[in-house]
């Protein structure tokens, strides 16, 4: 029996191929992209685990990362193999039956590598055909052989010495791999790149801070555009019919000191719709013009169909770090709806075009300015989930305010270029929640309160279950309709990751990274 299973596994591994057609229609037994599908639902259609049996979930196996840095991986699962990433920029291919390691890719980091403004983490890989793609802390994009982990190609994306890093998972399209870049606290000039999947040759680059002569350049003063930030550090979404990539951008640089950059600072804190073939901008929507609170718009853009004011629309929704939930037409970028989903004290609301009506005097100051949300936002990089059947948008919410401070900022290559910071309110005054929003209007259906503002994403499933985790190590399941707690387990380590679901020989599994371990749960 065991030999038979092993034989099956070997043949499955040998045949592992992920053609583009599979990425268009992901089979529910696999988890093929960072967010589960191109629309970034982080939703599994599997129904075996449901609200009646979740309480019977038990650990199937666990994997211990080789590194004790925060384990923020979102696994990708293909035909019996799970690909996890761990610090600094390593990949482990695991047998989904046993959890045993099939191969590892370990990448030594340059001694002088510094991550400015974030930890030495990696959030996941992309797969296409017989390759696994990884963005690295030293700002390379690497293609690995899916069967062995051998390097097929290794392309330099940017110079790590100037604070460029990659922590997010790449996005694989038909024949190209799209990757973003980190460095919003290092004074980089942000961009989004596409590389030829077979050769690693760069096909296009879109600069998220326009240069001289380009539209939007007038929103920067003098040379401030050269260090304007707008990094692209979280994985975006893709609409194959429109052939548009949707990707969020981060804060303008320096974060909290805006003296050198009067203007809207395009395309910082924006959602970009780019032509996948050329990298040309189709439209943009700036959530927080001239941001001074580090409210990156790098949250996951979720693509869905919705009926708005009686008309069927293709929309994109985002729970933004600035504490507002937005619904936009994804063909045109037109603003359709926007409401706060978390406490915010910086705007009276949004006008008809979605522009925030900013309350004066909320900018960072030398003595500190109290504003909700804190600089980590109403939510952050961890993923929301969209349940297409229930039309609910589940988001992990951070209810927390902070005093924002402004200080001097001078650009030096490879050094922090932030110009301030925050002092958060005492822990006892903060809390977290998973909130279920009506996906079309942003109206809250229910919330599940958490002890502290979380760093874990949300998964929803066809079985009507929502999974997420807490800073204190609780991994838990909620009823997707009501938010009622169905099951929880103490994992012994903080959860700073997104859950995924897949099946092994017809048995549904849910995986989450907690502490320094990856835990896989299933029914007995």
């Amino acid at each position, binding site marked *: 029996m065991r030999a038979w299973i092993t034989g099956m596994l070997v043949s499955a591994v040998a045949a592992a191929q992920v053609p583009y057609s599979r990425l268009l229609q992901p089979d529910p037994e696999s988890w093929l992209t960072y967010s589960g599908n191109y629309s970034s639902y982080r939703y599994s259609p599997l129904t075996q685990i449901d609200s009646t049996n979740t309480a019977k979930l038990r650990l199937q196996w666990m994997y211990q990362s080789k*590194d*004790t*840095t*925060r384990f923020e991986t979102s696994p990708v699962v293909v035909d019996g193999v799970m690909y996890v990433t761990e*610090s*600094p920029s390593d990949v482990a291919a695991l047998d989904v039956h046993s959890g045993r390691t099939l191969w590892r890719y370990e990448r030594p980091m340059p001694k*002088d590598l*510094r*991550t*400015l*403004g*974030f*930890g*030495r*983490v990696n959030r996941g890989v992309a797969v296409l055909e017989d390759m696994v793609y990884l963005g690295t802390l030293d700002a390379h994009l690497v293609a690995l052989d899916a069967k062995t982990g051998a390097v097929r190609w290794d392309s330099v994306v940017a110079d790590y010495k100037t604070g460029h890093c990659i922590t997010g998972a790449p996005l694989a399209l038909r024949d190209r791999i799209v990757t973003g870049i980190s460095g919003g*606290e290092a004074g980089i000039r942000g961009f989004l790149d596409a590389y030829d999947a077979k050769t690693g040759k760069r096909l296009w680059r879109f600069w998220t801070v326009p240069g001289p002569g380009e539209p939007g350049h007038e929103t920067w003063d003098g040379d401030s555009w050269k260090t304007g930030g707008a990094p692209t550090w979280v994985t975006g979404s893709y609409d194959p019919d429109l052939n548009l990539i949707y990707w969020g951008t981060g804060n303008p640089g320096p*974060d909290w000191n805006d003296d050198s950059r009067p203007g809207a600072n395009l395309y910082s804190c924006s959602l970009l719709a780019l032509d996948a073939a050329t990298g040309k901008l189709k439209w943009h929507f700036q959530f927080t013009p001239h941001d001074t609170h580090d409210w990156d718009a790098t949250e996951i853009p979720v693509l869905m169909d919705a009926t708005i004011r009686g008309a069927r629309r293709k929309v994109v929704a985002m729970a933004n770090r600035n504490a507002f939930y937005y619904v936009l037409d994804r063909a045109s970028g037109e603003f359709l709806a926007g409401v706060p989903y978390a406490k915010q004290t910086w705007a009276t609301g949004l006008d008809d075009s979605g522009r925030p009506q900013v309350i004066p005097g909320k900018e960072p100051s030398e003595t*500190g300015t109290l504003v909700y949300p804190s*600089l*980590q936002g109403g939510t952050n990089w961890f993923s929301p989930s969209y349940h297409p059947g229930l039309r609910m948008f589940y988001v992990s919410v951070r209810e927390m305010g*902070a*005093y924002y*401070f402004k*200080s*001097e*900022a*001078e650009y030096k290559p*490879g*050094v*922090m270029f*932030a*110009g*301030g*910071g*925050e*002092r*958060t309110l*005492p*822990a*006892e005054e903060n809390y977290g929640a998973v909130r279920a929003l009506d996906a079309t209007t942003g109206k809250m259906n229910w919330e599940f*309160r*958490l*002890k502290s503002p979380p760093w874990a994403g949300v998964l929803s499933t066809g079985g009507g279950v929502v999974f997420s985790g*807490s800073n*204190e*190590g*609780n991994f*838990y399941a909620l009823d997707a309709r009501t938010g009622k*707690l169905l099951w*929880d387990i*103490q994992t012994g380590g903080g959860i700073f990751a997104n859950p995924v679901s897949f099946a092994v020989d017809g048995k549904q599994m849910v995986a989450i990274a907690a502490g320094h371990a990856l835990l896989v749960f299933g029914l007995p």
Partner: protein
Amino acid sequence: MCVIFFLLTGLALAQTPLDVEKGKKLFVVNCATCHGIDGSGGAGPSLRKPKLAHGANKEDLEQFIARGNPDAGMPGSFHLGVDGLPLVTGYVLSLGKIPETPLPGDPARGREVYAKAGCAGCHILQGVGHGIGPELTEIGSRRSGAALKEILLHPESNLPTSFMMMEVKTPDGKTISGYRVNEDTVSLQLRDANGNFHSFRKDKLARLEKKPGKTWMPPYTGPDIDDLAAFLASQRGRS
């Protein structure tokens, strides 16, 4: 030669107010994003404490800041260089310092006050006593005499930020009070007045009440309070 060397080192170690100000500037640029603009913490831990988790002395701390703590997501700061590193380190150390005020009390008499007042009923000092409240063996390296006197006079106004007393009512009607050991989204662990641990599922409790600003420690207002404060301030580790 040797003498000159020591003299120079001594000068280099002496920290002027200007150095602290320079260190603060570097801190705000390089460290404040995670540790808070005033070092009170944010994504990273608070540094406003006399005893930090890393760096036993200034040299250790300087090396720690240079190397960083990648496991916890803290980048190294070699770029601050031989001039910048000591300045930042000095500033970080200054954050936990409570200004020393001359202590009028007599530590030897304070030892007798400690015994007479029954402090050992709730505190362990040099291995002796009951561990209901915090251990006091190193309290002198964590708090100044003036701060200790203030705590003795007004314990309820000087509680650590994470400290919370709680009272719960169990489904069978029992009321249990205690210090919070842990609280997460679903569970709560308390330690009661006898030092016993209690663990609860929060959704099973009939009542759950926080008691902010409450502690079992009674104020001490005796005329010999300066002696007691001086005695506690002299406790700097196991003898």
